[in-house]
């Protein structure tokens, strides 16, 4: 033991002091319990509360604005049900986008995968290859559509992992490739609603629903809730989901931790493609027909929804519930501005742009507060 009388003799003698070390578990003085700090702490632990609060507050604000401007009752069930019906397709695609963005990637070709799958689904359903078994035509068409979506996702995944290109570049390229393929395949022709209704009505399943008072529940909405639950479970309760987060966080650390990064990334892009394929079925139900030029802006709409929902574009952090809430928020602003406030269309786009910037600014602020 060292003291002025007995100076340190050996190089690790100072460690002898450790016998006197404090052995109690660390205690920390609690934070300043002001309301603001408590609120910040709660939001930090449950980041999904932010989009949820934005959604509720803006819904109330649009309702009050509608009353104040004498534009009718915004709170009636039909308005809410219209908003939810219109956001369903974006909500589905946002789930696919969430998977990809969690790995710090981006998927710009989701819209083209969606339309390609929808075209194949509708064409096979309307002109079945195997007319002897008419009952099998629609299920086969749906399976083919989902399968082709997964295949296109797989193609993206292979380019990203095997040729080691950035996801932005790969999906920017496949965006154009898939767009050209879809126009070539369809000869730029739509599949008409009357044909689908006559020959493959089950393709329209997700557009149907039931009344709940004035509120119209479609099977598409129920499907969105179910798929969100499945994706949430996969991301939060399975090893695969942990690996997706780890890869987005730090791909090198994930590799050294023994995660097969390439394999996980390929499954992520394939799953995203399959979700787009499934969404094609929902979109046919929603629109009733398939046009090769529909859903042109859904790529960016899905990214907007994901970001507003609090998922970080840098990967590793985000939430499935947030993505769905984000999609509802965007649609609420679009519908609210046209129904409750009654401004011109372009202000809706303006609002969506502002939302993205505010959402990311808020996210960055919360991030800094947690450091």
């Amino acid at each position: 033991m060292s003291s002025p009388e007995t100076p340190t003799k050996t190089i690790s003698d100072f460690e002898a002091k450790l016998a006197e070390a404090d052995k109690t578990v660390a205690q920390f003085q609690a934070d300043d319990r002001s309301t603001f700090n408590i609120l910040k702490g709660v939001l930090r632990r449950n980041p999904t509360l932010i989009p949820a609060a934005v959604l509720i507050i803006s819904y109330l604000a649009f309702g009050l604005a509608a009353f104040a401007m004498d534009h009718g009752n915004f709170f009636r069930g039909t308005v809410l049900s219209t908003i939810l019906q219109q956001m369903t397709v974006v909500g589905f695609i946002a789930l696919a986008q969430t998977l990809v963005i969690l790995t710090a990637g981006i998927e710009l070709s989701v819209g083209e995968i969606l339309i390609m799958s929808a075209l194949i689904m509708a064409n096979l359903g309307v002109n079945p290859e195997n007319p002897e078994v008419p009952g099998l035509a629609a299920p086969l068409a749906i399976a083919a559509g989902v399968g082709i979506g997964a295949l296109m996702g797989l193609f993206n995944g292979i380019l990203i992992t095997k040729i080691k290109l950035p996801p932005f570049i790969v999906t920017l390229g496949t965006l154009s490739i898939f767009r050209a393929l879809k126009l070539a395949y369809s000869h730029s022709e739509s599949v008409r609603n009357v044909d689908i209704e006559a020959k493959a009505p089950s393709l329209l399943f997700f557009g149907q629903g039931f009344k709940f008072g004035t509120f119209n529940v479609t099977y598409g909405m129920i499907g969105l809730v179910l798929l969100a639950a499945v994706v949430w479970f996969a991301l939060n309760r399975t090893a695969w989901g942990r690996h997706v987060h780890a890869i987005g966080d730090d791909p090198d650390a994930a590799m050294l931790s023994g995660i097969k990064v390439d394999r996980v990334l390929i499954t992520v892009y394939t799953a995203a493609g399959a979700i787009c394929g499934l969404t094609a079925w929902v979109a046919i139900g929603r629109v009733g027909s398939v046009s090769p030029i529909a859903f042109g802006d859904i790529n960016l709409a899905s990214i907007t929804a994901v970001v507003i929902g609090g998922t970080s574009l840098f990967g590793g952090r985000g939430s499935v519930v947030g993505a769905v809430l984000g999609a509802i928020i965007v649609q609420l602003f679009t519908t609210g501005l046209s129904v409750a406030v009654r401004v011109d269309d372009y202000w809706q786009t303006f609002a969506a742009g502002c939302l993205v910037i505010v959402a990311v600014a808020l996210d960055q602020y919360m991030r800094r507060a947690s450091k």
Partner: protein
Amino acid sequence: MTQPIIKARGLMKRYGTVVAMNGCDFDLYPGEILGVIGDNGAGKSTLIKALSGAVTPDHGTIELEGKAVHFRGPEEARGAGIETVYQTLAMSPALSIADNMFLGREWRKPGILGSVFRMTDRARMNAFAREKLSELGLMTIQNINQAVETLSGGQRQGVAVARAAAFGSKVVILDEPTAALGVKESRRVLELIQDVRKRGIPIILISHNMPHVFEVCDRVHVHRLGRRLCVIDPKQHSMSDAVAYMTGAKVPDGVTEAA
């Protein structure tokens, strides 16, 4: 002499024009603590990565318990029982402590929840992680579910060491395990190294901290210019000898600099 548990011969690795390993040999015997020392850029980390599967050598052979192995990734080395703490720690900041400890080897729930729905058994993993951290004396960690990014550098290193000690079954490799630790935590890591050795598992310790190396190691592998210069017994050589060998100030007996 007993059979080495890890035996590597003539390992070569180039990164473009940079030679990281130039015909490196390596031996680890059962039950020993082997120190690896060397100057910065001598290729210690590349040697370790070759043994832990993170780097595939261009030439050379690695044998584990007498059988040739060719690791294509860290997961294969881990599967073979070689557990590594990297200098960068290889942890995912946004995930929790328990998630990080089990990354890549999650326990699934028993029954249909695990086999069909692939559900992870979080309660069991949390309890195990908590137990291993307590063994290491990391008492300042308040919550096993807190994200790794909220921990200090030393606490992170402690978690990484606890992870390797908990899962290593054949060999534990520690690359600078005490670099970011305080005096007390360093001492705990050194004790932990002794504990792991008592379980019969050999350890490779890479460190710049000569007192630590000379205190715990049975043999010290001196690395210089991409290859093994010599192996010394810390009881017969002084720390200044070791520093002289690894920096080229002195050539050990029976070794010529060119060899």
